[in-house]
């Protein structure tokens, strides 16, 4: 369970780095290839999926899979912190529905 939470946490930072790297993209292939933020973001996604696989090996998938989606909540926080994206009501409602939907999806297995 802790491993899966860790995975969601790491994955959310991966998304932040992808966004940071994407902001540095121009019509120049070098800005894609020599982009440390993008590389680090993809690396964090890989690390995140490694911890996820470790975490779900011994656990109930119906509980663990929805836990990964907590990464969306972390990302909401980082988006405000690092990119100044506002908290809005529709973000909370939408996210709440997505999280409940995922929980139901895996409860229905």
């Amino acid at each position, binding site marked *: 369970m802790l491993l899966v939470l860790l995975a969601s946490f790491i994955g959310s930072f991966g*998304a932040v*780095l992808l966004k*940071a790297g994407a902001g540095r993209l121009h019509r120049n292939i070098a800005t894609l290839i020599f982009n440390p933020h993008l590389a680090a973001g993809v690396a964090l996604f890989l690390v995140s999926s490694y911890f996820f696989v470790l975490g779900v090996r011994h656990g109930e998938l119906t509980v663990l899979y929805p836990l990964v989606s907590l990464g969306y909540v972390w990302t909401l926080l980082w988006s405000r912190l690092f990119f*100044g994206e506002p908290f809005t009501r529709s973000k909370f409602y939408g996210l709440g529905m997505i999280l409940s939907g995922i929980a*139901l999806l895996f409860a229905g297995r």
Partner: protein
Amino acid sequence: MPDPTAIAPPPSFRFSRGQSIALVFGCTIFGAGAQILIKTGAQSLSSAGVLAMLTNFHLLAGYSLYGCSTALLILALRDGELSILYPVISLTFVWVTMLSSLIFKEVLTPLKLVGILIIVIGVAVLGKGGKQ
């Protein structure tokens, strides 16, 4: 940590919010295709060796699709809000559930269908709401 002043792309070409969401939409379809291919590849794997994995067509195709999916996400994130676009990736769950029932004959229970519906509505609320 990311420098906010460097985030603004050149004004020459920018995706609107709708276009960014459409890009993530494509990203989820590629992502779901990748997961299905990787599952198919894993099932057909004769041994657990690295060579067997590297020469497995389904696995290779699956990982390539993951690459395409990530590329679309990066493109979308360039101009879009991370807090709106990232949760849209949850649509992958929807496609994977539907494709699994079609391809692997996994049972679509009523609970799963309700879950799918709520995710889709949640994504719509997220994408429609708020100001640009």
